[in-house]
Structure formats: structure tokens, C-alpha cells
């Protein structure tokens, strides 16, 4: 062990020289824009926590693979009863946590009970809401009974919020994370990097190639590119600067892959505040926006236009961009019908993220063509935005990316900041949630997408692209993120 550690530190030193001999040592340095505040995805929401830990450090009963499909992980197999109320999981044997304790059915029960307890600060508590009872007939079987059928229950169990933790270590996971994943926690230099090393007793250790993974936190887009060029960082799965991405894609030292995230960039509207409570006004705004101009201007042409709030990665996606296409003529007619033939004034609360500020400025320019004057109010994200827009609903228009997978149901939630509250839509979403037959559920989601596209509770702009850049000799990086993550279990350096 000692000699291995020495070898590894030698590897790290070597990797510090530009484009060094890292290829032989199987060490990987991944760059991320934001540092996670802690390393426990079951107690806080920030995406950065999942980007370091999900499937690297922690594992769930099931996983979501690179195509967005649910696959076995800590559960080898499962059966769902006819009525969709009982899930019987058969657990994998021979799995241990990084502290050496054995993974058993009681850990699953502990993890889910902890997540749904009143003291829990789990950011996605609704995942566990349908659970009525968890039984552990033996060490390798877990039976979960639901109070009502939940069509997406298995899918949600694949999220970072539902990973399995051990009672011995759960309380210190924020700073000393212990999971069952292929990599274990080694060090965290706050403000700089988190280091993980391969876990020797991992149940699938022979298929893990990397010895060490370092996550470095570099916020400035220019500094990100400089770190890549200098060889300090081998991969940036989400490069912050679309305008530099094209340049890097011409550099043969790098693979530059434009994939999709689950993030929909939408300009949220306050559906209760006049004049936005009039569907004709909202439709006019949508008709006034040329999505291709936004994508070109805000993201250098990367990103797929969307007509509703649904990821093109998902099998239930339907293209609704033609429901209210760019048509300034029609937009002016609609405004005149609604009584605003002379135009109107609106304000947009604009967060500082580059995609948001660039889009907001382009939207303002486009809307002025149809007689809508848009006043831009810079609003600090997340602090000020959450308070003013999200909590107090003190806004007319705003713009953010909604990055959670399968989150069309936010339009149905009571008190959510769009304040859409449409009965027909709510029924579609509730019905979809209860439906366990996949085809029937997807059909309901298709109807819900069309309903949103027609009612435009928010302006649907484009899917946030994932601009990944990494050393061309790296294999196995994920091109899309069907769920926020940087999964490195399949990553290796080419021979």
C-alpha cells in the first residue's frame, strides 16, 4: 500500500508537468466550474455535489446509464407487483462500504428512512413520499410497499438523492464521505480540489481503470481553457465558454463533444400578474422569439431549440417547436387582440450566468420588434433570485435553466414561481405519475408537453448543451448528462 501511494504521488507530480506521462499512470484530473459545498448528495441540492460523487463515490439501488435508462446497480434484479405497489429488490452480494462494513438490506432501509424523516434535509423528499413501508426479510432482499402507484419510482431511485449510505458513517458524509462506489474519498483541499482513489475492494474492481481521480474547481472560463491547454486539467465535461469551444474542437490534442444536458433554458413568466395572465400575451411573446438567434448569440450555435419543457434525451420527447414558431406578424396581432396594439412594458430579472444575460439581451432586442419594451434588471443568482423570484414571486419575467431530469411537473406544483396552476395540465401530470405502463405514461407526457407549448407558462428557448472537452487519449467519458454527474467508472487512458 505504501509503495502504491508513493507511485501515485509520483504520478501526480508527473501529471503536473504539461501533458505529462499521465497516460501510463491512470490518473485523471477533471475540471469543474463550481466547488461542491459538501459531499453528501442526500442532504443538499447543489449539482456540484452530484458531479463529484454520483456513481463515483456513492451508488444507489439502480443507476441511470449514459442513455438515461434505468439499470441494476446495488440491486441485481427486482420485481414489481401487478398493482404497482410492491417492489421486491434482490441485492448484490459481496458489496462493502469504503470503511469495510458490509452492504446489507438494513442499509437500504436506513438510507430511505433517513431521507424521509422529519429532520431530513433531502432536497428531493418527494421521491420517498409514496413509500409506505420498507421490509427486509433477509440481508439481501428489500421489499418496498407504496401507498399509491408511482410510474417513475425506479427512475428516481437512480438519482443522487437516493444513494445508499451506512448508519455508521452517514452523519459525517458531508466532510468524510463513505459509499460503496468504485472510488473512495482521499482528500479535499477546500477551494482547490477533491481527490478520490480507487477502492481496492470494490465489487467490480476489475472493470475500473483509473487509480486516482482529482476534481479541480476553476470558475473562470478563460482560466478553464488555459488549464486544459497547459495540461493541468485533462477534462472539462462542462466548459463554461461556448465561444472558445469551437477553437478547442479544432485542436487535435482534444476531443470536443457537444452533447445534451437535462437543462431546459426557459424564460419564466409570472402567470398571475397582468398582462401575463392573458394567454394571448404569452403566446405573442413566444411568437416574437427566434430561438435560432438565441442559440447562435448566447451559445455560439450549440443547443437544441425546445417548444416545451422536456428534454430531447428522453424517449417521451415530442418536438413542439412548431406550435408557436417565430412569427412577429402573428405576435403583433395577438397583442392587438389582447388590447396592447400600442405595445407594452415588461421587466425581466436576469441572473448573471452568461447564457442568461446574453439570452435576455437578445430577447429584449427581438421583443422590441413586436412593440414590447423589456427592462433588464440584473439579479444575483442564486441568493437574490431565489428570494425575489422563486419565493416571493416578485417578478414579471426571468430566465434560468432547469437542470433536474424529468421536471415537467414543476408547472403543476402549487406555489411554484410560474404560478401557472392549470387544472387540465395538473390532471395529466398526476395521471402520468400514477401510470406504470410505459407507453401509456409516455403518451400522457406527450399530451402534457403539447399543453405547455400552447399555454406558454414560460417561454421555451433551448436545451442547455453540454460542451465537453477532454484529452483525445481519454476513453469512456459521458457525452450527454441524462442526470447531473461526471461518471468516471468507465474512463481510461488509451494504450
Amino acid at each position: 500500500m505504501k509503495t502504491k501511494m508513493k507511485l501515485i504521488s509520483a504520478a501526480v507530480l508527473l501529471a503536473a508537468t504539461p501533458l505529462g506521462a499521465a497516460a501510463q499512470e491512470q490518473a485523471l484530473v477533471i475540471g469543474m466550474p463550481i466547488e461542491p459545498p459538501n459531499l453528501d448528495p442526500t442532504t443538499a441540492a447543489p449539482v456540484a455535489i452530484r458531479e463529484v460523487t454520483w456513481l463515483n463515490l456513492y451508488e444507489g439501488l439502480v443507476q441511470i446509464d449514459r442513455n438515461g435508462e434505468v439499470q441494476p446497480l446495488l440491486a441485481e434484479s427486482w420485481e414489481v407487483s401487478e398493482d404497482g405497489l410492491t417492489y421486491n429488490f434482490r441485492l448484490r452480494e459481496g458489496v462493502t462500504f469504503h470503511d469495510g462494513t458490509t452492504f446489507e438490506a438494513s442499509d437500504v432501509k436506513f438510507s430511505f428512512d433517513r431521507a424521509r424523516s422529519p429532520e431530513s434535509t433531502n432536497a428531493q423528499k418527494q421521491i420517498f413520499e409514496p413509500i409506505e413501508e420498507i421490509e427486509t426479510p433477509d440481508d439481501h432482499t428489500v421489499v418496498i410497499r407504496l401507498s399509491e402507484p408511482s410510474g417513475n419510482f425506479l427512475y428516481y431511485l437512480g438519482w443522487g438523492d437516493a444513494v445508499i449510505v451506512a448508519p455508521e458513517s452517514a452523519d459525517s458524509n458531508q466532510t468524510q464521505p463513505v459509499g460503496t462506489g468504485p472510488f473512495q474519498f482521499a482528500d479535499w483541499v477546500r477551494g482547490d480540489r477533491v481527490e478520490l482513489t480507487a477502492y481496492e475492494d470494490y465489487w467490480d474492481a476489475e472493470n475500473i481503470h483509473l487509480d486516482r481521480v482529482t476534481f479541480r474547481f476553476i470558475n473562470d472560463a478563460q482560466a478553464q481553457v488555459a488549464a486544459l491547454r497547459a495540461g493541468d486539467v485533462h477534462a472539462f465535461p462542462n466548459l463554461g465558454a461556448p465561444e472558445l469551444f469551437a477553437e478547442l474542437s479544432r485542436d487535435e490534442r482534444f476531443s470536443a463533444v457537444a452533447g445534451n444536458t437535462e437543462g431546459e433554458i426557459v424564460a419564466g413568466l409570472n402567470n398571475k400578474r397582468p398582462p401575463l395572465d392573458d394567454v394571448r400575451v404569452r403566446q405573442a411573446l413566444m411568437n416574437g422569439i427566434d430561438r435560432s438567434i438565441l442559440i447562435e448569440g448566447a451559445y455560439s450555435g450549440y443547443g437544441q431549440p425546445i417548444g416545451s419543457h422536456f428534454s430531447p434525451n428522453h424517449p417521451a420527447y415530442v418536438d413542439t417547436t412548431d406550435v408557436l414558431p417565430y412569427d412577429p406578424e402573428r405576435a403583433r396581432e395577438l397583442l392587438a387582440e389582447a388590447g396592447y396594439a400600442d405595445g407594452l412594458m415588461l421587466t425581466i430579472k436576469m441572473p448573471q450566468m452568461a447564457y442568461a444575460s446574453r439570452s435576455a439581451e437578445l430577447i429584449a432586442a427581438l421583443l422590441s420588434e413586436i412593440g414590447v419594451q423589456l427592462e433588464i434588471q440584473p439579479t444575483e443568482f442564486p441568493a437574490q433570485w431565489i428570494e425575489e423570484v422563486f419565493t416571493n414571486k416578485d417578478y414579471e419575467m426571468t430566465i434560468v435553466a432547469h437542470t433536474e431530469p424529468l421536471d415537467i411537473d414543476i408547472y403543476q406544483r402549487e406555489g411554484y414561481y410560474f404560478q401557472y396552476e392549470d387544472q387540465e395540465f395538473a390532471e395529466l401530470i398526476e395521471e402520468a405519475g400514477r401510470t406504470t405502463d410505459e407507453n401509456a405514461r409516455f403518451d400522457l407526457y406527450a399530451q402534457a408537453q403539447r399543453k405547455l407549448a400552447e399555454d406558454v407558462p414560460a417561454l421555451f428557448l433551448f436545451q442547455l448543451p453540454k460542451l465537453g472537452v477532454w484529452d483525445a487519449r481519454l476513453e469512456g467519458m459521458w457525452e450527454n448528462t441524462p442526470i447531473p454527474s461526471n461518471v468516471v467508472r468507465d474512463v481510461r487512458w488509451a494504450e
Partner: protein
Amino acid sequence: MILLLLRRFASLIVTLLLASLAIFVVLEVLPGDPAAIMLGTEAREDTLAALRQQMGLDRPAYERYLDWLGGMLTGDLGLSMTYRVSVSELVADRLAVTIPLAVMAILISTALAVPLGLIAAANHEKVADRGVMLFAQIGVAIPNFWFGLLLILFFSSYLGWFSAGGFPGWAANPALALKALLLPAIALALPQAAILARVTRSSVLEILGEDFVRTARAKGLTRRVTLHRHVLRNALIPVVTVMGMQFSFLVAGAILVENVFTLPGLGRLLFQAMSQRDLVVIKDVVLLFAALVILVNFLVDLAYAWLDPRLRQRT
């Protein structure tokens, strides 16, 4: 002298108390709920309430302020709301980056500025003077974070001599750690050097016009000796004043430069704590910055006394 020290020290304490109150009040009225930031847009009300209680946000403001002050006195800076580790630990790690960075920047800027200012003044209205003034113009005009980016592009991306930011830590190899601080220190030092060089130049020029300089020259001292023995020491008082005032700019500059070079320093900690609304860390770090600035000004006052013996008598 001792009385001067005591009086200075008392005003230092009062200033710090006022600063702590100002910081606390500003953070109370600043929009942004740290619990809501941690839990994101999907969180339910009961979850938020649970986290607020864990963070101690459900307690009245005056209680939290007194707790904070009391903790300070016993050296307990509290627990970071987001990182969940003690702030003392976080700050100690960060000071090990920021203090050496600031010291290096001061050394570099002084080493550059004082000779440049002297040369310019000694060659008033000649080519050397024009050159120094041009440098000073450019140095003041260039923002230090942008200059830092230029340094990275040239020395890291193009020449490959330095890594493009990051910090290896002092433990492993102090030489590498110093090397990692060199480019950011230069980026931080350039605007300071430009200002200092101008101040040195004009101050030296002013002294050069004084009667005692003419006397010194008249009694046969060479230009060089006059400059070094009589002019420089007298000219340094305004220079030291400006250096003291610049310290707060240096601290502010460190926030930007540390971000560009991704150095895990105090400035970057503050920047991150700000966007996460980690109120405990913000309060501690801002107060620490305030204390540093006040302390440096205190030292500047002492430096006056050393430079100008008359000031020692005034107490």
C-alpha cells in the same frame, strides 16, 4: 511612544467593534436565504425549516450577533454553514495562501516602484522619466485580473513555464508553492507598482526643490549621495502612506486575482461564501480583512514615527 501605542490600540478595538456591527447588519438585510440556496428549487417547506434550524437561523438576530462576538473572543469563529467545518480551520488554510501572496505583491511592487520613481525624478522630463510615466499610465489602466489572464496565456499556455493556476500546497514542496504564487503576485503588484512609482516620483521631485537639498549640493555632496541620504528618506513618507492605503486595494484585488488563478486563498473563500450566502464565513472573513487593513494602517503610523523623528515627540 507607549501612549501613542495605547491610544492607537484603543481606537483599533473600537473600529473593529463598529465594523463587526456594520457587517452583521448588512448581512441581515441582504436578500438570500442560505438554507434555500443549499436545498435548491425543489425543496419543500418542512425540509427548509429543518435546515434553517440546523444552521441556527431560527434564532433572533441579537442572540446570533452576541454569540458571534463571544465566539470571537474565545477564538471560536463558528462552523461554516455550507462546508460544515470550523471557520478557523478554513481561514488558517487560506491565510497560508493570501498572506504570502500579499507580501510577495508588496515586495515586488515596492522593489519596482521606488527605483523607478527615483530614476524618473532624477531624470525629470527626460526619456527615462517619460518611460516610467508611460509604464505608470499603462499599469494603472490595466485591471489586475485581466493582466493575470495575459500572464497565464503567455507563460502557461504558450511557454508552458508555469501551471495555469492552482496551488500545490506548502507541505509537499515550498519551491513549487512559491512558483505558483509568482504570476498572481506579479498580476497583483503591477497596478500598485504603477501608482507607487508615480507617488515616489512626485514626492522626490518636491523634495528636490527644497532649500536643504540645495544646501547639501552647495556644501559639495554629489547628486547620488544627496538623493540617497537626504531626499529619499524625506520622500518616503507619502510613499508609505500610499502603501498603507493600497493594502485595502491589494486585498480587494486578491479576490479577483485568486479567482483567475484559482488559488485557494481568503479572497476566493469570500467570493464563494458570498454566492452561497455562507453568512458565518462572510462575517468572519470580512471582519478579518477589516482587521488586517486596520492593523496595516497601525503599522504605517509606526513607520511614520520611524521615518520622521519629530512625530515621536508629539505624544
